[in-house]
């Protein structure tokens, strides 16, 4: 099932955890209102059953994430730059770039940090192990982890890339999130193992990660995107467009270890 880990867990392999990316109550300060009004709106196409033609609908799937990140991460500095990302959910749009900069911020010491989403699946096994340790997941044999990634249809990552303001512009890249999907490459995909580094939680990054993962799957024409969610994260995924027990269809597990 899906392990979505944003707080420390016990050793059970099936345990999943509270996401910290819930939309918070709107901030009414004029700074945030201005940022919100200036943010570009994103468009998707939706076939409306009651009309014969398609109708445009405005949608801002990443807005909550952006505002969360602004609220939590940027209050202390004025050099915030919110980087636009293409967020329309068209299925016939141009191929998505494999790397998307979700946000960029400059700290007071001049260090520039970018949070980058990638579907290239470039995962260092030891970085992933460190990340899993941070969220408290039990260690798994590296050879098996390597195989599970290799056999996944899509492996998505979040990296923090910091650039120092020195002469060489030294860069440091750190894995701060991951999610993967298995699939038959035609009809169905199942998302597993979504996790975000605890020190980066609460900024909407888990939400952005899953959203981009969904987009990448839709882009590849996978029509049925599924996952198994712990009760604590069901609402998190509902907010991302997932439905539990659609038409009464139940997720079942073979002799689960509980």
């Amino acid at each position, binding site marked *: *099932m899906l392990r979505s880990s944003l707080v420390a867990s016990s050793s059970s392999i*099936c345990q999943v955890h509270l996401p910290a990316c819930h939309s918070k109550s709107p901030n009414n300060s004029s700074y945030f209102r201005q940022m919100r009004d200036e*943010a570009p709106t994103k468009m998707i196409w*939706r076939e409306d059953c009651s009309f014969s033609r398609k109708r445009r*609908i405005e*949608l*801002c*799937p990443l807005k*909550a994430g952006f505002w969360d990140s602004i609220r939590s991460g940027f209050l202390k500095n004025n050099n915030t730059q919110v980087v636009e990302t293409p967020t329309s*959910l068209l299925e016939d749009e141009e191929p998505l770039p494999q790397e998307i900069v979700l946000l960029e911020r400059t700290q007071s010491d001049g260090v520039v940090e970018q949070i980058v989403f990638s579907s*290239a*699946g*470039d*995962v*260092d*096994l030891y970085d992933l192990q460190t990340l899993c340790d941070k969220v408290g997941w039990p260690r798994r044999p*590296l*050879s098996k982890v*390597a195989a*599970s*990634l290799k*056999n*996944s*249809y899509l492996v998505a990552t979040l990296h923090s890339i910091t650039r120092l303001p020195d002469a060489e512009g030294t860069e440091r890249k750190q894995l701060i999130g991951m999610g993967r999907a*298995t699939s*038959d*490459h*035609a*009809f*169905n995909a*199942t998302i*597993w193992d979504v996790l975000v580094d605890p020190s980066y939680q609460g900024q909407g990054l888990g939400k952005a990660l899953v959203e981009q993962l*969904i987009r990448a799957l839709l882009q590849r024409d996978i029509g*049925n*995107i*599924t*996952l*198994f*969610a*712990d*009760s604590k994260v*069901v609402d998190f995924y*509902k907010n991302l*467009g*997932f*439905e*539990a*027990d*659609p*038409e*009464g*269809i*139940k*997720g*079942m*597990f*073979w*002799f*689960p270890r*509980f």
Partner: protein
Amino acid sequence: MQIHMSSFSLPTSTPKPKRKPFRPIIASSFSISDQDLQSRGFTQHRSSTDLDLDALNTVFARVGFPRRDLTRIRRALDHSSSLLWLSHSKPGEPVAFARATGDGVFNAVVWDVVVDPSFQGIGLGRAVMERIVADLRGMGIVNIALYAEPRVIGFYRPLGFAADPDGIKGMVFSKKNIINRTS
């Protein structure tokens, strides 16, 4: 086994499906044994090489599944970690079928479990499911999941499947759930 210590990258192109290594299914306690199946005229198949995709589509339609594009079915079968089908008098025509996807080590999901209506009620669905589960367990996978329509939840329970264990919910992405969100 050597593990790459440095950065691990996935190939950018979809890897071609390889010939699967032979994995004997340990038939410790199947409800219908391999001999029983054989004596009743059923042949077991674990690859889709001889499978008539159009006949499979017909069985899907007969049980109420949508018919699907044959190229996509081919692709789905090539990328399933495990599959099993039974034929009877007509070679290549499936009377029972099941397949599973997954990462080959930790998780698997079973899809498209079907028995042709004229062969239902004699235990073929159970036979196919027991063997698929045994095959997945033989790969070391213990996290085996599936999505069950309400009327077949009772079919999977005696096979060892439990619904919503510990409150875990099966969820499906629905494009119509993307609603107009205001800031």
